[in-house]
């Protein structure tokens, strides 16, 4: 009675877990390293000092020569019932052993049967003789994708045996929730887990996960919204706050995403059941689950199912009263007090995090049933996480107009060091508008005075602006822009009295598309504190300078004739209709100027065609700036979801190459060399990874310092990949960024690619410090976000040589 029953067919084992078809979240079987000859032997770097690290990976150990044996089981005469098939087969436990996974036709065993084909004879209780033929179809090595999927399924079973609750992809412990009654939130502690083949071992990567749940139903939330905003803005506000959220239902263990709200429907509305009959929601829930819906006037939530789930397909209607919200709304994320209260529970410092992970492992270690299950499969875990050495690469020097700075590696920030130093390129502000409402007249003046104080030392020449007072209405702002912006205007600064998004959107939309002029919006509130005004003004001055095409600082980039590209995607969750890819490419040798464009694509279209066009224009611009074409191109591609790597490698990369080839031919007619084809490197950047690293410092666990590079042990053998911890965090654990070089003809050593990547994390001008991803990725993200949130169409190309979206 040990057997793990595999629910339905081999498909379950390979790609499904629960419900519908699942993507291969771990991108198994995408082997990109084999095509890169120069990293066959080694993909590790060498520079920097050594650092002792531990991680949240635990070795999965199996006995030597362990394999999973896959058999096909046939019955003669044919037996229909799965239960009977199992019963008949397991009459022969002495042959096949006590440990098995059988779904009715495919049998997995941890041992190999004597013969390739085994014939067994059973008798049903009716006295019918049945011949069972067990045929070996596959001998799966521990590292085979099927086998890895199998481990993951077994592990999920273990978590279930530990009575953890599955929500989405992870498992949570419901018995010990943290409740935050002030905000009606509940936080469940849980775990994410995945078992994968890493460099030398198969390991379990386990991390702490927090699920924020809300002790109220969607209907409760609607009521609160109603009492807050009133009838008029009720529906709009509901749509804004609720669409995109994930809900749990009262009657099953599924999660749904709210895609729409059907205000014309209510629980008395009918739907068509799978047998074709019509039924009202009220009747259905009463009949099926004995649930009485009390509010018959509430609207109905719509969830679009992306995958087929059982026999349900297409939109699913949900009753607000029966749905509980999970996660946070944007509004909640912006609630400083709420996030502070939450952070106490969710931002675990390294030691505590490791302790919580240790708790999961000890549950596993102490539970007899779990141990038995593992033993029977011949598997066990190392209950101590792996330790290894990483490297901390040398800090970068920051250059700014002939000055050179070191920064304190502990903070990874050079705000202080560079204060009062001339910028690399300070764009004069000769003609500009400062727009404000009457109430903010004083604030506007304060800003102006502060700007005049901070700009001279930066080398920015700033003239008096055109000060314009407006009514606090969107149309008033727009009318002023239409009347007063001239082709000579360098920049428009608007002081907004509230963070109302519609006003901001309207201003940005107008100044990014119809009338391409850089703009800077400032919330009056941020200028209201005398003690911070100079810091704020400094930041604003720097941002304005970048938006007009200025340059702040640089780091040493030893490569010549190189173009760096960053790509990130934004998916519009509210309208759900379009995706935006931000595309940013360096223009100059010092990678301080960028060419920025974006692709707006409606749902279902492939982004790559647009990206190809972006790359072409970027190359033309680069060649205009440098009078030649780049010899190397590095693409940092962010926004690649779990399981999308295959598409990227097989579809997007070839398109890049195609594009380079065609550019080569175009230019061969002109004055460039006939055989132009730059070397290309494509690096997939991933911020959301399960791996965490802890530095063993002074007997305790600390966050590793910025510049920590990990390219052994927890990387994947089939990839040319590495991790960099580039940023620092004040609270909690720092998340490393994963870089996967999927294509590389640069012939650079891994060390150089790692160093270049780290250098680029220093180049984001909106933050005088090191960030989590290379600057071009963050720029691309910023651009895509602005377009997706506010502009909704491609901005005017006149702006493309400036960081107007910062």
């Amino acid at each position, binding site marked *: 009675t040990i057997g793990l029953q595999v*629910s339905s067919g081999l498909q379950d084992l390979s790609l499904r877990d629960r419900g519908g078809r699942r993507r291969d979240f771990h991108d198994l079987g995408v082997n990109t390293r084999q095509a890169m000859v120069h990293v066959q032997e080694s993909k590790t770097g060498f520079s920097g000092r050594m650092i002792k690290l531990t991680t949240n990976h635990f070795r999965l150990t199996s006995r030597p020569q362990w394999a999973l044996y896959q058999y096909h089981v046939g019955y003669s005469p044919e037996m229909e019932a799965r239960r009977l098939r199992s019963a008949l087969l397991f009459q022969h436990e002495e042959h096949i052993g006590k440990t098995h996974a059988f779904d009715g036709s495919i049998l997995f065993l941890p041992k190999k049967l004597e013969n390739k084909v085994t014939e067994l004879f059973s008798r049903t209780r*009716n006295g019918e003789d049945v011949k069972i033929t067990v045929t070996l179809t596959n001998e799966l090595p521990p590292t085979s994708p099927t086998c890895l999927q199998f481990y993951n399924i077994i592990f999920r079973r273990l978590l279930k045996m530990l009575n953890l*609750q599955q929500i989405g992809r992870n498992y949570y412990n419901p018995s010990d929730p943290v*409740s935050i009654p002030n905000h009606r939130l509940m936080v469940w502690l849980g775990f994410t887990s995945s078992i994968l083949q890493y460099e030398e071992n198969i390991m379990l990567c386990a991390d702490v996960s927090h699920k924020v749940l809300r*002790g109220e139903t969607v209907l409760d939330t609607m009521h609160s919204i*109603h009492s807050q905003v009133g009838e008029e803005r009720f529906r709009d506000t509901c749509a804004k706050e609720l669409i995109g959220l994930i809900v749990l239902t009262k009657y099953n263990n599924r999660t749904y995403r709210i895609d729409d709200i059907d205000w014309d429907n209510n629980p008395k509305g009918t739907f068509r059941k799978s047998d074709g009959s019509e039924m009202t929601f009220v009747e259905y829930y009463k009949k099926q*689950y004995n649930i009485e819906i009390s*509010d018959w006037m509430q609207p109905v939530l719509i969830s679009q199912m992306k995958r087929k789930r059982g026999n349900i397909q297409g939109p699913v209607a949900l009753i607000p009263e029966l749905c509980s919200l999970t996660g946070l709304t944007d509004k909640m994320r912006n609630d400083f007090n709420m996030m502070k209260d939450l952070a106490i529970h969710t931002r675990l410092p390294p030691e505590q995090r490791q302790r919580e992970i240790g708790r999961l492992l000890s549950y596993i270690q102490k539970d007899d049933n779990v141990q038995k299950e593992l033993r029977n499969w011949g598997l066990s875990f190392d209950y101590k996480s792996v330790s290894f050495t990483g490297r901390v690469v040398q800090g970068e020097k920051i250059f700014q107009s002939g000055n050179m700075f070191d920064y304190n590696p502990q903070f990874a920030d050079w705000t202080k060091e560079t204060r009062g130093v001339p910028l690399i390129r300070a764009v004069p502000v000769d003609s500009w508008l400062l727009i404000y409402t009457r109430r903010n007249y004083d604030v506007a003046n304060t800003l102006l005075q502060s700007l005049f104080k901070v700009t001279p030392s930066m080398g920015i020449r700033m003239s008096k602006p055109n000060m314009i007072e407006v009514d606090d209405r969107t149309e008033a702002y727009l009318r002023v822009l239409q009347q007063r912006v001239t082709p000579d205007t360098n920049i428009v600064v608007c002081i907004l009295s509230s963070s109302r998004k519609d006003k901001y959107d309207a201003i940005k939309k107008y100044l990014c598309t119809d009338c391409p002029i850089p703009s800077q919006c400032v919330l009056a509130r941020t200028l209201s504190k005398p003690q911070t005004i100079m810091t704020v003004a400094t930041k604003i001055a720097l941002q304005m300078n970048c938006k007009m095409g200025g340059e702040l600082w640089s780091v040493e980039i030893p490569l010549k004739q190189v173009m760096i590209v960053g790509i990130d995607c934004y998916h519009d969750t509210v309208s759900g209709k379009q995706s935006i890819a931000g595309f940013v490419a360096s223009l100059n040798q010092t990678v301080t100027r960028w060419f920025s464009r974006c692709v707006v694509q409606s749902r279902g279209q492939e982004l790559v065609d647009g990206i190809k066009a972006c790359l072409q224009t970027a190359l033309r611009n680069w060649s205009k700036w440098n009078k030649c074409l780049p010899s190397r191109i590095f693409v940092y591609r962010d926004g690649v979801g779990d399981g999308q790597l295959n598409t990227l490698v097989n579809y997007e990369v070839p398109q890049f190459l195609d594009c380079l080839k065609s550019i080569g031919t175009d230019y061969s007619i002109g004055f460039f060399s006939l055989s132009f084809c730059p070397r290309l490197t494509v690096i997939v950047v991933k911020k959301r990874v399960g791996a965490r690293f802890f530095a063993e410092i002074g007997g305790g666990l600390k966050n590793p310092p910025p510049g920590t590079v990990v390219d052994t042990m927890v990387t994947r053998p089939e990839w040319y990949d590495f991790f960099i911890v580039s940023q620092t965090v004040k609270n909690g654990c720092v998340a490393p960024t994963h870089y996967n070089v999927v294509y590389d003809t640069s012939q650079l050593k891994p060390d150089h690619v790692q160093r270049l990547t780290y250098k680029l994390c220093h180049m984001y001008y909106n933050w005088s410090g090191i960030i989590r991803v290379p600057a071009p990725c963050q720029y691309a993200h910023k651009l895509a976000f602005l377009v997706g949130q506010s502009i909704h169409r491609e901005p005017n190309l006149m702006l493309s040589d400036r960081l107007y979206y910062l």
Partner: protein
Amino acid sequence: MDKNFQEEFTQIIKFNPPLYKQRHQFVKDLVEKYKPKKVADLGCADCSLLRMLKFCRCIEVLAGLDICADVMKEKMHTLSPLPVDYLQPSERSLTVTLHHGSVAHKDPCMLGFDLVTCIELIEHLEEPELKKFPEVVFGFMAPSIVVISTPNSEFNPLLPGVMLYRHPDHKFEWNQAQFQSWALETARCYDYSVEFTGVGQPPTGMEKAGFCTQIGVFVRKYPQTGESVQSEKHTEAVYKTVFKAVYPSLKDEKYLRNAVISEVIFTAQIIKHRLMSKHEEYGDDPERKSKFQPSMDFSFSDYLGKVVVEKNMEPFISGNEVHIPLATIFSFPKVNRLCGTFEKLCKLIAGKVTLSSDGSAVMFNIEHENEEN
């Protein structure tokens, strides 16, 4: 019967809803009618009936028994509480337990049930087991009601493809007379009354065949005397528990406390929110006691209900502190329903919610709230 007719006929016999669903519905209707608190399903197999019954709000104890542990284990986790059950604990308590064992053996864990269901069970029993079955179920468990369903062999000729029995594991299939005589004898022996019915209507013209599934509903004639229960039933436990889930319930003080605290703070914040917006309108005199006037501008449902405002229940602002009397909070229907009495409310929130010095009001400090973010 005319052979052609039969062939033609067998092709169209198909139950809608499917027969197993009709059986489940039958049990559910019975539960609705008799409102049993403790229900056991013998031969629960993949727990599908239990899964349905857990939604019946009268049931507080639900047990399953099967001879095959594997088949129970396969889907037993679907009987676990859902995340929402933790988020909004129910008023009733519910415990679901699965036992591995045989209906031919007595185990004290099966005592004290109101309803025992044996859906398509007896036909799987070997003769010796079937012999012991009445003594175990009617004699030992002795619930108020027993439901037994089994195939009616007279219906078999109407079913396509049925050779000997409907399922190869069936040891027998009885006709109506056989089942009824067994049932009547059993009922007589253990002082039960029995009524016969079934699901799966025979087609028109074939009424004599009877229901496809025949069902006997046994009702105990006399309530059990407490003494006989105690004295006779010193039996050792032989079943193995394979699964147990205790649902979060407001009957459990831990969950009740959490629910009350959360509701109290939430309610207090609603009041505070209204008070503060009033306060702002009236200017910044912090000493002025603002009057709390609940404005119920709700349209699509009566949500918070009526708030009774008495003189001593007015919330007020004093300096940086907002005082919201517990009496006001207690007057909100949700809080009221959860606690029942004011004393209970005070007891439950003791030490968990910041109160004024005399303990009569919930207190908020509003000083740090306007901090810049």
